[in-house]
């Protein structure tokens, strides 16, 4: 086991591990290139620096004179894109989703996948031509965001690559000069708990930039008062916790990202060579890259350096969460701090528990007999569990398969001596399973050199590994891994099918069979997604075939609409009964219809889509409700089509009352009347509307005589009431006659008018006439009670024939004696008790007592 390439840095070790021999198509020195590499062992993008072109160094190299190339970690070409070297390139980088974002000075932006294919074609950030002051100076791709600085010292970000809308973060006064460099700090580690931008001031010091807040300037580092000279470069650890500042004169200051503490300050003493990169190696050390020398700056001022063995100029380091990738023309290495468990186990002459267990296992395998003793001693010191656990940890930190195996076997051996239940066996299984995955993806053909920790990180952050494998089209591997981890595989199959579609070898039905056969084993596959892709490739028939296999109805609808299969879409939407589907179809049909009707040669087709919607009961009602909300004309046409004259009339009435201009209203009423006239099932609607129009004419006439404008658009009864109140009895009678108001009704109205004008005598004469009023006595009694005219009310109550009513009402107006008398007369003796309880009048009680004793109760 190799501890040879371990380098000590204080009391820890760093090691460089060889991963791959690079398979670049042509091994040009890396220093000729702009390079961007994705985290988590991701792809490497390269573009030739224009300077190198002019210098003519790669003289006859067509590939790099024309293309941007994308390679994997082992240098295998994954994609190439024709490059326009006349455009002013500013920067590029990979997002967390492994989208390559490339930015040009004029605001043009390119989004590519790992194969160099355009993901979308976003518009330029500031339009064309861009304003001069918005020339882009520098960029950073941060997580899934783009942050950039423009010539007028404004910082922007783009948080969403589908819209690519730049939003201002803040600006720095132009007079301060252009920032030397900048870096974004994520909210969970930043000074302000928001997204902070740190940028170096050309005159020394740091500016802290936050959204819609004033820019803070630091000439000294807060809490420590360390003077900050000109900042040349800033590096943030991948986890975002730590910050390294490269100051003028090769001084590196390492601090916590929120400024709470300075961790170390080292003079890198490299002034003679240009520092090319300042990179974090995990979270424990910062590396300065210059020429063929990489200096490692650890905590407590510890330093070390490691040499790179290379033939051609240029090194590129990629920070990872727990180390860094070092890429040269020849090879790809991984540098990391040696895992503590690995160090414990493998350090020469180590007497740690795991080292002992490892030795014990070795001697056991060699049958040397000394193993029992070691195990016993570990057991006695209660170190066996620790030994097993450390060995597992060490195994997970190993890249070499043989070493992994050795360590795992030793751990398994130790485990057998542990009492049952102490050690969770799942843990061992889990580690073996994950190592199996790692060993596979680290192989040259996949070239995803993840560490164990990185693997766990990608797993807990949305199964990133699977997504990346799909991006690279390693479907089989992705399915194997998913099954091992018990993840869903349906989306992998869909992804596979979508890629398969590009294969021109098969005709539509062969392709459909091929896909269905493969996907048969997997339920809940979204065939719609595949069909949509087929459609994108112009294979409509295939899309329809695929769609027939889709089990979920509502997923079919949008695609059928997209294919303009409106009738099918409508049927499916109705079948699903999802209102969203139905409305979606209706909307599309309406849109199409509107566009068609705007054409000059438009002739409404027989049985067009709109008519078809109207033929289906459920869709019909929803169409009407949609039309009501968006398009009046559409609604009217639909009513006409359906011969729904009543609804059309109703809608017109509604509109009539929304207008508060009389002329408008009357006109609309007339239209409504005509519509109602075609509704022969119920003549009342037409008649009533006609009557109302006549009424309004009459009312307008009456304004002159009454000077009462409020009379307009009252009901007939209210009109009569108003007239009576104005003393226009004759006009009232006329209206009554014209509109067939019965005498009985008139009697009510007169009573109401008299009550509201406190004309009690009038009311009295009304019900004390010889002839009983046509409306009976109750209305009189009720209204008099309500108005508190109790004396008169009593008289009216006594005229009402129902005894129950009399008794209740008399009690209510507290005419207890009368109530008692009525009760006696009607022989309702039960009521007497009730009355006796309520009254305080002794005369009434006496009366009741007398009656009760008289009747023997």
């Amino acid at each position, binding site marked *: 086991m190799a501890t040879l390439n371990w380098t000590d840095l204080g009391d820890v070790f760093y090691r460089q591990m060889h991963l791959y021999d690079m398979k670049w198509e042509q091994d040009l020195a890396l220093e000729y290139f702009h390079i961007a590499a994705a985290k988590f062992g991701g792809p490497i993008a390269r573009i030739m620096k224009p300077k190198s072109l002019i210098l003519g160094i790669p003289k006859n190299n067509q590939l790099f004179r024309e293309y941007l190339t994308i390679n994997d970690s082992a240098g295998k070409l994954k994609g190439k894109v024709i490059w326009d070297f006349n455009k002013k390139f500013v920067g590029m980088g990979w997002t967390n989703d492994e989208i390559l974002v490339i930015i040009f000075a004029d605001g043009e932006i390119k989004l590519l996948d790992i194969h160099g294919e355009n993901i979308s074609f976003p518009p330029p950030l500031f339009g064309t031509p861009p304003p001069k002051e918005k020339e882009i100076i520098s960029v950073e791709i941060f997580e899934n965001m783009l942050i950039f600085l423009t010539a007028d010292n404004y910082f922007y970000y783009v948080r969403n690559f589908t*819209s690519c809308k730049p939003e201002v973060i803040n600006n720095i006064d132009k007079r301060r000069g252009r920032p030397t460099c900048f870096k974004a700090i994520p909210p969970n580690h930043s000074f302000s708990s928001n997204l902070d931008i740190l940028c170096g001031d050309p005159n020394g010091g740091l500016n802290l930039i936050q959204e819609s807040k004033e820019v803070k300037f630091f000439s000294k580092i807060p809490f420590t008062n360390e003077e900050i000279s000109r900042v040349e470069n800033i590096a943030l650890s991948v986890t975002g916790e730590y910050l390294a500042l490269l100051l003028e004169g090769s001084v590196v200051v390492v601090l916590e990202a929120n400024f709470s503490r300075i961790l170390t300050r080292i003079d890198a003493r490299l002034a003679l060579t240009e520092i090319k990169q300042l990179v974090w190696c995990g979270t424990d050390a910062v590396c300065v890259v210059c020429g063929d020398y990489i200096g490692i700056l650890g905590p407590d001022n510890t330093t070390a350096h490691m040499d790179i063995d290379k033939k051609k100029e240029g090194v590129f380091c990629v920070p990872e969460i727990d180390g860094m990738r070092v890429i040269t023309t020849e090879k790809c290495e991984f540098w990391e701090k040696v895992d503590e468990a690995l160090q414990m186990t493998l350090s020469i002459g180590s007497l740690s528990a795991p080292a002992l267990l490892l030795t014990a296992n070795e001697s056991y395998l060699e049958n040397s007999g000394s193993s029992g003793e070691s195990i016993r001693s570990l057991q006695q010191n209660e170190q066996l569990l620790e030994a097993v656990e450390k060995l597992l940890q060490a195994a997970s930190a190993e890249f070499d398969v043989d070493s992994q195996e050795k360590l795992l076997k030793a751990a398994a051996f130790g485990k057998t001596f542990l009492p049952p239940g102490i050690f969770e066996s799942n843990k061992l299984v889990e580690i073996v399973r994950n190592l199996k995955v790692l060993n596979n993806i680290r192989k040259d053909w996949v070239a995803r050199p993840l560490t164990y920790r990185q693997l766990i990180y990608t797993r807990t952050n949305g199964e990133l590994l699977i997504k990346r494998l799909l991006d690279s089209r390693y479907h089989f591997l992705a399915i194997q891994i998913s099954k091992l981890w018990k993840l869903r595989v349906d989306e992998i199959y869909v992804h596979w099918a979508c890629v398969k579609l590009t294969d021109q070898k098969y005709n539509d039905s062969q392709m459909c069979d091929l896909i269905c056969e493969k996907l048969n084993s997997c339920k809940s596959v979204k065939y719609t997604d595949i069909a949509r892709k087929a459609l994108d490739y112009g294979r409509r028939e295939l899309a329809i075939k695929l769609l027939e296999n889709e089990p979920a109805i509502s997923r079919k609808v949008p695609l059928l609409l997209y294919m303009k299969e409106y009738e099918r879409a409508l049927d499916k939407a109705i079948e699903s009964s999802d209102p969203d589907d139905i409305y979606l179809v209706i909307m599309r049909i309406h849109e199409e219809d509107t566009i068609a009707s705007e054409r000059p040669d438009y002739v409404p087709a027989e049985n067009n889509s709109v008519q078809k919607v109207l033929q289906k009961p459920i869709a019909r009602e*929803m169409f009407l409700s949609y039309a009501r909300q968006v398009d009046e004309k559409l609604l009217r046409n639909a009513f006409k089509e359906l011969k729904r004259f009543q609804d059309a009339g109703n809608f017109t009435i509604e509109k009539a009352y929304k207008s508060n201009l009389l002329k408008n209203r009357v006109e609309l009423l007339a239209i409504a009347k005509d519509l109602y006239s075609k509704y022969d099932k119920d003549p009342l609607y037409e008649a009533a509307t006609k009557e109302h129009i006549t009424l309004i004419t009459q009312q307008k006439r009456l304004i002159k005589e009454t000077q009462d404008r409020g009379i307009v658009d009252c009901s007939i009864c209210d009109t009569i009431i108003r007239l009576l109140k104005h003393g226009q009895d004759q006009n009232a009678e006329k209206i009554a006659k014209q509109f067939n108001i019965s005498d009985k009704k008139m009697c009510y109205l007169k009573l109401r008018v008299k009550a509201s004008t406190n004309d009690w005598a009038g009311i009295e004469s009304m019900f004390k006439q010889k002839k009983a009023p046509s409306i009976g006595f109750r209305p009189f009694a*009720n209204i008099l009670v309500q108005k508190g005219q109790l004396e008169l009310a009593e008289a009216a109550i006594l005229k009402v024939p129902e005894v129950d009513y009399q008794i209740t009402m008399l009690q209510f107006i507290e005419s207890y004696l009368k109530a008692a008398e009525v009760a006696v007369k009607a022989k309702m003796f039960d009521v007497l008790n009730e009355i006796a309880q309520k009254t305080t009048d002794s005369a009434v009680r006496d009366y009741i007592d007398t009656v009760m004793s008289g009747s023997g109760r």
Partner: protein
Amino acid sequence: MDGESTARFQSLREIARQRILEILDMIQGQKFLAIDPSLVGPLSLIIEMSVLKEHGVSKVSQIVEKEIEFDCRDVIYICRPTIQMMQFISGHVKKCNEHREEHRYHLYMCPRSTTVCEKILISNNVMIDFDSIDQINLFLIPLENDLLSMQMDKSFREIVLERDFSIYHYIARAILQLEHNYGPIQIKEGKGFASGQVLRILKMLEEDDPEHINEVPISVIQSAVLIDREIDMITPLCTPLTYEALIDEVFGIANNIIKVNPRVLENDSDRQIQISLTSADNIFQEIRDLNFCVLKPLLIEKLEYIDNTYKEKDQQKSVEELSKYMKKFKQAHKEASFVQNHLHLAIHITNETVKNPFFNQNLDIEHSIIMGDSDSQILENIERLIGMGEDINTVLRLLCLLSVTQNGLKNKFFDFFRKEILQTYGFEHILTLSNLEKAGLLKKQEGKNNWSNLVKAFKLIKEDVNQRIPDDIAYAYAGYAPLSLRLIENLYISGWNNDVVRSLPGDYSAIRLNTEDKKQADKPLVLLFFVGGVTFAEVAAIRYLNRRPDAKREFVIATTHLINSKSFIDAVSEKIQNEIERSSIE
């Protein structure tokens, strides 16, 4: 109620609450919250204003057509997925863009986001302005431990007038959400057109469900029974007589809260007083479902008890006695204000209702309609109400009740009353009449009258019901047993496979899951889902069924919304502003 059932459905509230907090916390700094007016009430049941403030909400405003002034960079909209809302919101965004105001918009639709809404934003060219568009899956809100409501006040109108399918879909999703949270419901059955549609959609959703409900390890609810309001439109037209139902009739309960004129409470505040009516008020919990006639003596008794407790203050001797007394005193003190409030409310309601002869006269008319008395007297009485210009809502309610019980009004009377209404209350009510006819509430008589058969078969009338100590559900309506509830009782006595049940509108439908039985409680839990609304008196009567010593199952209630006789008619009425600009009259 035991501990388990008190917290039973609170997790629904908790999930929604967490979701809203998550939405708020996702955005740093202050944010402006704009809410769909129809969601303000429901959301107030989920999360308190003070909590919104704590999570950075600077201001809350209702989404209206006209511009809103946003005072923060981030604007969060929460709305129902309707075309109208999308148009309002698009309008706001466009206006702000015109004024070059930079905002970040976030849109959350409740209970789900729809493609249609997104399309509208796209066609209005504002889609690009939204940072996030997502949903809040809030379907059922627990109003009480045994009462869940979707709080969709327009749902009955949408069902009977607009014939909009959305509501069926939402109900199906609501039930699915219950199954996700509380395990599969073995039997789901229902009667009526709406129930059938809901179950049909639910079946499709269950089949296409990515999180399979059978994987939920528990099964809290054994069965669900869906009742379509269209089967029983009689009950909501009747006057209820339980305390909570009467509070609702008189004050209108909205989201567990009533607003009361301070004079009613003998309070000298100059603003309306809000009273929260939930089981947290233990006095209310005790009396909410009682028939009104027993209320006053009970409250007075309570008041006397409290009074006596206060008086005992000086009689305590030993320390032990004193500490015991303090407990009693604290309890009494807590209850005192509750009792006071309820006494005031009860007095007000008494004066408005049972002590008011005019209320009773109307109640008599209602009673004769239910009893199936001869028409002439009833018609005469209604005519008199119209003649005297009684509130149109009351008149329509009685006419509808007559029409629904008699399968329509005779042609002659139908026309007579419609004319009477138009001539008395105004021509614009023609739209309401049309709506009522479409809803089947007020129509021309057709076919045979089934009412007397129903009354007999379901024993809908129980005049000798004991209103003080209930012995039948009829106590809630003073002698009338709600048809909806008799139907449910009937399901467990004779089943629904008989001619009387078949004579009610709509078919029977059911979904039975064939999964192994999960552990069931001794008393199975049955969910009654009222599609189109439930009244507080029905709720009270169901609680009475739960309390019966011979109860074999426990009912919990779910509904689209709560209704009373007023809101039921209002929902299908057309609100028209009859205003004329004076200058337009020449």
